[in-house]
């Protein structure tokens, strides 16, 4: 599944990093402590977090993520969007909790190997 497919299917708002919408999503991850996410998030994941600070983009690049979802109706900072555009990491917005989106992603086969 590509990031743009997720955007369409779950009606996510693209706040930045438009140029990365063709990245492939193979996994999912949730976390708001960036020190923890930096060490554990899998490559190719869509990462759900309430943090909107610009450091999320650097963490996504480091872990070779597919996209970031800023959940809970939180807003990414202006600098975050600039960095996302530069790095080509899509920043998507979701009005509900990370739990709700993660459940739907899992049902759609994200993170389940046999679902490909």
């Amino acid at each position, binding site marked *: 599944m590509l990031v743009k497919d997720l955007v369409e299917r779950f009606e996510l708002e693209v706040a930045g990093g438009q140029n990365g919408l063709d990245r492939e999503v193979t996994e999912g991850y949730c976390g708001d402590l*960036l*020190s923890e996410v930096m060490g554990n998030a899998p490559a190719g994941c869509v990462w759900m977090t309430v943090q909107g600070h610009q*450091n999320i983009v650097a963490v996504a690049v480091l872990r070779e993520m597919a996209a970031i979802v800023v959940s809970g109706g939180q807003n990414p900072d202006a600098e975050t969007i600039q960095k996302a555009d530069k790095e080509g990491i899509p920043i998507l917005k979701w009005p509900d909790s990370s739990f709700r989106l993660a459940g739907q992603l899992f049902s759609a086969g994200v993170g389940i190997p046999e679902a490909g």
Partner: protein
Amino acid sequence: MLKLIKADLHIHSCLSPCSDWDMSPKKIVQRSVEQQLDLIAICDHNTAENVAATMREGDHQGIVVLPGMEICSREEVHMVTLFKNAEDAMEMQHFIYKHLSGNNQPEVFGHQVIADEHDQVLGENPRLLIGATGLSLMNIVKKTHDLGGISISSHVDRPSYSLIGQLGFIPEDLQLDAVEVSFRMPLEKARIEVPGIEDYPCITSSDAHFLHDIGKVWTEFMLGAPSLEELILALAGKNGRHIVN
């Protein structure tokens, strides 16, 4: 003439919900004098309502008290902010209160006691002081600097509510004046083990919530006088002022 100043720049009073009832302005000053500190700062969570009383008591007992606040950003990072005078601290408090929501539940989080320098209770603060403000770190640092104050990233060696714990690393464009290491790690060790702090002035403070914790650790500065202006020079390493250890 420059002299050695022993400073503990992060002390909570009884106004912080997690702090001990005994942390009154008068007792904090007494204990600080006993610990032979020359300079202390009162930094309650998201409030400065006990700083003026502590400063008056400091004058009375001959120790300099800086007005401060430990502000929680919307990223849930704690930041010690210090100001020149109580008026500046109150202006910062006004700004913080506009971006702080919720009411305290004393039975859950603890009492938030406003006290004067004579150990008289003046009231309780009803706000949810333990909460996070809606302000970004960048915004807090900018407002602090606009008011002539300084921003010190709290307990950077800790996993919780610290800049590195919450945000993974120190954002390069954040204009920090210093970083604070907790009593749990000696400064020398922190400079090697905590990633990214070697480029910042490092201090250590007690973050005391109980009287017996005041002066548990401290930082020595070479200053012309115990004041914020001199502290700013020392953190920048200017005019012979500096951090000794």
